[in-house]
């Protein structure tokens, strides 16, 4: 009887975290349907092991950890099956029809997707999901200092890609000039 009650509470609590889980999943996989697959798998797993969750502790962090573990175990599986998962992933990340009309956001999203996986994940957890460095470290199973340096490097790299500071030697214009120099002799 008491079991039943806690089960229903747990379901309601799961529901409350789903929007955040989807946002985190999107930042990991890029495509909405894949992200929802990941959330779905996370919910099933969370439900199965709900007795191992201590009510009143950080459910959001607990669920993020499950989602992240699920993501990386799928990645490992896929890497064994597919020869070039990176290329396929990059392709998927670049198409978001729902973002039409928000060009500057599209640029920003592209820049975020260029970040190395570990940096992007740390940046999202701390900068968007609202976790502390300590909580993010727990979710990623690494040291707090590692999270801090990943977030810092992610910010610096984003600023470079978006040419927020200085004269932007890494910026798109510099790349375009390089391409022109390469192609002009052939033209």
């Amino acid at each position, binding site marked *: *009887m008491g*079991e*039943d009650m806690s*089960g*229903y509470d747990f*379901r309601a609590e*799961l*529901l409350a975290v*789903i*929007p*955040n889980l*989807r*946002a985190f999943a*999107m*930042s990991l996989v890029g495509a909405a349907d894949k992200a*929802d697959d990941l*959330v*779905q798998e996370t*919910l*099933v797993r969370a*439900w199965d092991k709900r007795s191992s969750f201590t009510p009143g502790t950080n459910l959001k962090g607990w669920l993020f950890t499950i989602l992240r573990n699920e993501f990386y175990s799928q990645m490992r599986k896929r890497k064994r099956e597919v020869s070039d998962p990176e290329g396929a992933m990059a392709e998927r990340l670049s198409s978001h029809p729902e973002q039409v009309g928000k060009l500057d*956001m599209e640029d*920003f*999203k592209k820049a*975020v997707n260029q970040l190395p996986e570990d940096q992007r994940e740390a*940046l*999202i957890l701390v*900068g*968007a*999901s609202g976790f502390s460095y300590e909580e993010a470290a727990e979710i990623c199973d690494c040291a707090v*200092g*590692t999270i*801090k*340096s990943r977030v*810092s*490097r992610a*910010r*610096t790299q*984003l*600023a470079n890609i978006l040419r*927020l*500071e200085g004269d932007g030697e890494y910026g798109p214009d510099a790349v375009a000039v390089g391409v022109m120099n390469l192609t002009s002799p052939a033209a």
Partner: protein
Amino acid sequence: MGHKVTQLSSNRMAQQDDEVENSTPKPALSTDSQAFIGLKLRELYDDVVAEPVPDRLLELLGKLGEDDRKNGAK
């Protein structure tokens, strides 16, 4: 001898890695850039958070609850 050199250079490599790991204060971004990145990041994230929960996830949650109810009734 050769072994010693390798060890030394690998030590130096490790040290450089450490420096990179602890580089938080060095390339300090301007507060403007930090604020811009923070704002955009949350906008990107909150756009997804604001989306309604897809039906298939709601259905799944309902099913999980149903199994629980059935098991409880038995």
